C-alpha cells in the first residue's frame, strides 16, 4: 500500500518566489538584487534583509559556485529517499555571493568512498554548476564541474 512517505515532499511555494520558479521553468537560475544597496537577496523576499528596501529586481545568475558545506546522508528522512542513499546535501556559495541549499550530485567514486569514510570535508571548496530538473515540480541539483 502506498503512503505519503513514498512521494517527495513538494515545495510550499511562496508568492515572492514565483519569479524564481517561473525562471527555472525557462532554464534560468535567478536571484533578487536590491536596487538600493546592491545586495544579492536569497531566499526570495519582499524586502532587502540588509537595507529594508522593497525595491528589488530579478536577474539571471551564472548558476555556478563552490561548495561551502556539505553532508552525505546515510539515513533517509522517509521512505521516498531510501533508494537514493547515500546522497549529499550542501550549501553552495554562488558566484554572485549568496548561499543556496541543495542536493550535490555524488559521482559513483564519491558515493563508494562515502560508505567507507567521512567525505563531507573533502567536498568543501569543490566547484559546482546548477542543473535544472524539468518536472511537474521542477527543481535543481548541483553537479561537480
Amino acid at each position: 500500500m502506498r503512503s505519503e512517505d513514498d512521494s517527495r515532499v513538494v515545495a510550499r511555494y511562496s508568492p515572492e518566489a514565483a519569479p524564481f520558479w517561473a525562471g527555472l521553468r525557462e532554464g534560468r537560475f535567478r536571484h533578487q538584487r536590491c536596487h538600493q544597496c546592491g545586495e544579492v537577496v536569497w531566499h526570495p523576499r519582499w524586502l532587502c534583509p540588509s537595507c529594508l528596501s522593497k525595491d528589488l529586481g530579478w536577474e539571471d545568475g551564472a548558476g555556478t559556485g563552490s561548495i561551502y558545506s556539505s553532508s552525505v546522508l546515510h539515513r533517509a528522512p522517509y521512505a521516498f529517499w531510501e533508494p537514493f542513499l547515500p546522497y549529499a546535501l550542501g550549501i553552495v556559495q554562488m558566484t554572485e555571493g549568496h548561499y543556496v541549499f541543495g542536493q550535490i550530485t555524488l559521482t559513483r567514486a564519491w558515493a563508494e568512498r562515502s560508505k567507507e569514510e567521512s567525505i563531507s570535508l573533502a567536498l568543501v571548496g569543490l566547484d559546482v554548476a546548477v542543473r535544472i530538473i524539468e518536472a511537474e515540480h521542477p527543481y535543481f541539483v548541483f553537479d561537480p564541474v
Partner: protein
Amino acid sequence: MKGLDVAIANYGDAYGTDDDPKHTTELAVDAFLDLVRKTGISRDLIGGVFTGRSPTMDLRPQWNNIISSYLKITPAYTSEVTSHGAGVNATLAYASAFVSAGIIDYALILVADNPGSSASHIKKTAGYDSDPEFELPYGPTVPSIYAQGATRYMHEYGVTEADLAQVAVDHQAWAVHHPYSAKGPKGEITIDTVLRSRMIADPIRLWNSAIWGPQGTGGALLVTSAERAADLTDKPVRILGFGGMNTHEYATDRMALRSSPHDLGPLPNLTHTGARHASRRAYEMAGITASDVGMVQCGNNFTHMAMIFMEDFGFCEKGQAPALVRSGRLRPGGDLPWNTNGGWLSFGQPGISCGMDPIIEAVRQLRGEALGLQVQHPGIALTHAVGGMMACHHVTLLSR
C-alpha cells in the same frame, strides 16, 4: 536589570521507563504533584504558568492553557515560550521578570514530553525545521542540517572526528551513573566506539548524536521571590541571571545574516551561535564572568555543538574546545562538570522536555539531590538549551 531577587523554590520531576512508558500528560501531572508535595503550594497562588512549545507527542497548540485547565489552575499570565526547544530555558526568564516586577508572586513552569518512536520523528522534525520551499524538498534530516555546521567547524578549525568522539565518551561517563539515562545501560565507551558507529549524516555518526529518549520526562519548577522561597524550602536555588538570542529560523537563512550588533563571529558563518550573546548577557546580569561558572548543563544535541558551545560560553577561544575536552575538566572528577546526567547525547532528548532536563539536573545537583553522580560544591551552574537549527539559545545561571 541587576540584582534579581528570585529563586526556584523547588522542583518536581517524573520519568517514564521501558516497563512503564508514561504518556505526556501523566508525566506533567506527576511532575506537578511532586512539586506540590515538596512545596505545599496552593493552586490559588499561582499567577503565571509558562511551558515550552507543545509536546512533540501532543502537538496541540496552546498546551500551556490545556495543561493549566487540566490542573484547574487559572493563571493571570500564561504562555508557551517558543523559541523552539530553547523556549523551555527561557521560561525562567519570563517567570523571573514577572516575579521580579511584582506582577505575580508565584510562577509555575511545567514541561513534559515522551519521545515516542524515533521513526515518526525523523520526517516530522525535518518538516518543521527546514525551509519548506528551498530545503525540505531535497530530503534533509535534522542531523544533515546540523552536519553543515559540523563540516564547517571541522574545516575551519582543524577539528577531527576523534576530537568529536571524546565528547561522546565524556557524556557517556556521566550517563552510566544516572538511573534514567537512555544510553547509560550501554556502559562506558571509547573513541573507537564512536568512530566505528554508523554514519548518519556525514560527518555525524550515531554516537555523535543525541538519542530520542528516555521514555519521557516531566519537570515542574516553582519560581518566586527569594524571600517567599525561603518559607517553602531550606534549599532555594537562586536565579542569578539569564540571556537569550535567536539568530534565524532556517539554516540557509543564517547564511543570509550578514551583520549583527552582537558578537556572532565573522558573518556569515555556521560556527558561532547566539549562545555567545546569551551567555554574556547572563554573566552581566549575574555580575560574573565565564571563569566563575562551576557546572554546565548544556543542550548539546551533537558532539560538535558541545564544542561550539564551550567556545561560545567563553570557556576557551574559538577552535580550542578539543583541548578543553582533552584536559578532562568536563568529565567526572573535573572542575567544570559538563552535563552531569549525560546530557542530550547520552541521557537523551525526550521531545520538548529536553529543555527542562538540564534545569532539573542543575537544581538537583545544587540541592545535593543528584540521581546520578553528585558533584561536590558545584558553585554556579550554567543551564542552556538550543532550539531549531542552531538558531535559538537561552542561558540561565543558577546557584544556591
